[in-house]
């Protein structure tokens, strides 16, 4: 009898705790980060502006809210330099004639004092936007924009939208565009300091990113072109106070169309821009997988990540690209994921 009472009491306590948890969950949960929503923090995981190859990115940033906001935006340039020839820019070891590619990290920020409701800003990264965004060239990196108050420091809730178009500057205008939407994080409006806590004050990051892709070297049935995918991963966290890249380790589970699984992992700092073949030389090959396409699940140990995929189809001189952000499963429970703003001037 005593045992039964204890069990009953324990069950009631459990139910009460669960009910409280349910209430707490309902009150504090924010929408997940998304490319098809607006939010107070906008993350563009991949911007590129290079003279060779001639690549450029057009950024679209819009205020979908009903009131004007201010912005504090941060470019993170992760272009590396070759160990043997420091004057040579690189993104991977294969781009250096000898030695390793040493990843760089440089942060460059700008502020927008008034971003009216309903307005859209658009600019090419290399050109900048007069009086608003500085020009940035020889750039492979990302852009984060945070909605702030009139003091240009205090984070506020807002409805920002972002989109990019990556294109070859040698191609005819309007052709050869790879487009993706920026990830947006909704704010609960409860933050007043310089640490933007992702997962509590802002939407949480994905737990598992899902990359639907063709395998490397697969022939496109439509055009006969050879297909390859470049994967971009960017850490959710950034620290603009200490200005150092954030380390994480990404695990890849590759599942081919026959549901066979293989896996690998890759460590990187703040941003990974990698042809799938450079993540693993054989794992992502169509010849290895015996399959045209597959699904790769990406989980990180350390800081969670946001992803963009760029698929290229090349057939002789014909070359085309297409990009998309990554769907995901669940939200990360990783603690201490945050964007840390620099101290006030």
């Amino acid at each position, binding site marked *: 009898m005593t045992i039964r009472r204890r069990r009953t009491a324990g069950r009631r306590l459990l139910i009460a705790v669960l009910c409280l948890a349910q209430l707490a969950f309902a009150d504090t949960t924010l929408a997940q980060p998304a490319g098809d929503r607006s939010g107070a923090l906008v993350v563009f995981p991949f911007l590129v502006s290079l003279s060779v190859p001639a690549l450029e990115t057009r950024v679209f940033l819009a205020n979908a809210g009903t009131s004007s906001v201010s912005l504090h935006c941060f470019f993170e340039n992760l272009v590396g330099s070759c160990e043997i020839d420091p004057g040579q820019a690189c993104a991977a070891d294969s781009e250096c004639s000898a030695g390793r590619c040493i990843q760089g990290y440089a942060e460059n920020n700008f502020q927008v004092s008034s971003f009216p409701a309903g307005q859209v800003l658009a600019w090419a990264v290399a050109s900048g936007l007069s009086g608003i965004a500085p020009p940035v060239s020889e750039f492979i990196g990302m852009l984060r924009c945070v909605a702030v108050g009139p003091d240009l420091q205090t984070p506020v809730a807002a409805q920002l939208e972002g989109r990019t178009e990556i294109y070859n500057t040698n191609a005819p205008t309007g052709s050869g565009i790879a487009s993706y939407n920026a990830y947006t994080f909704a704010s609960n409006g409860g933050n007043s300091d310089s640490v933007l806590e992702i997962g509590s004050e802002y939407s949480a990051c994905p737990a598992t990113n899902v990359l639907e892709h063709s395998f490397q070297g697969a022939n496109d049935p439509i055009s006969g072109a050879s297909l390859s995918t470049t994967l971009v991963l960017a850490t959710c966290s950034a620290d603009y106070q200490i200005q150092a890249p954030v380390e994480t380790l990404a695990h890849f589970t590759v599942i081919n169309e026959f549901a066979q699984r293989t896996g690998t992992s890759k460590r990187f700092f703040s941003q990974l821009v990698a042809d799938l073949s450079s993540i693993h030389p054989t794992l992502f090959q169509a010849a290895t997988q015996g399959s045209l396409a597959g699904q790769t699940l990406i989980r990180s140990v350390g800081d969670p990540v946001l992803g963009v995929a760029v698929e290229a189809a090349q057939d002789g001189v014909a*070359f085309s690209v297409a990009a998309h952000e990554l769907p995901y*499963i669940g939200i990360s429970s990783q603690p201490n994921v945050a964007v840390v703003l620099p101290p006030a001037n």
Partner: protein
Amino acid sequence: MVGAWVHEQDRWDNVASFFELAERRRQAVPMRCVVVMSVLFGAVAVQAQSSVHAGATILSFPRMVSGADVDTMVQIGNLSNFTVHAHCFYSTAANNQRTTSDFELVLLSQQSLRWQVSAGRAYDVMLQAGDPPLVLPVVIPPVVSSDFHGELMCVEVDASGYPFNGNHLTGMATLRSSDGSESATYLAIGLSGNPELPPSPALPLDGEAYDTCPDTWVLSHRAAGTAFTIVPCAHDFENNTVPTIDVQFSVTNRNLETLTASTTLSGWAEVPLVDLDPDGEDHASMDAVAIGTDYARTTISSVGGGILVVGQDLGTSSGTVDTALNNLVANGTRADSDAILLPPLVGGLP
């Protein structure tokens, strides 16, 4: 295709019977867990709004094109650890009449499949040295027309073909020119179902049983060369009827000047911005001159039913092939609900 469900089931006879038994056993435990966990934590509760990022029960690909110059590759993935079934419908719609062809899809644990819309996909076999061959028991038919401009919608079902609110599907589509000079990708628009509620062949997009369609769709874009592919949220695959919907466009340029225009949707439609006639303006066309700045932001809303939208960058090189496809930002939820009606499950539930 009314009543095609039965024929599709016949086509599956041998394969389906095997999967059905395994499926029921596999799904029994996870489904119980889903219901219990959702009651306790609300973690898998319906999001109440469409998403391109989360697993969904209903996947919409508003833009499927297959012709001499361009074709579409579709890839659909299963995000779960068990086998998932989907009932898919290619359809074209115009003048309030829908033409549909359907097929069923079986996806093993975390499997994804890619196929060419004009060719479909036949049984596939992978030979392995020393091991039994792997067989993909999937038959995806080609679209019925050699010049197809329409959509694809897939609904997650159980092994018997009855709707199943599992939210396990994700997908993307890539349109590519036959000469390989242009590619464009977008993510399927997903509508999640509430696993706590019993599904039925009529899927109400009411925010309770399934996500509601967005109130407005928004895209920031270049003033020239932008178009939208628009389909109704409501799909009646039983009677193949299509609602008439008024679609309204509000284009705001960088100087915050706004032009408005409207058109009527009676099925699948591709709407180049330049083809719209701005309301109360001297301009006969919503072109770059009328918009007035190089860039603009277009908000799309509808009256008479919800809509699903994909944005197109038409480029200026040839103008015949999409150079980029864009998922739009979805804002708010419609006050009125829409519904997706599946064809009847002949023979009823087993």
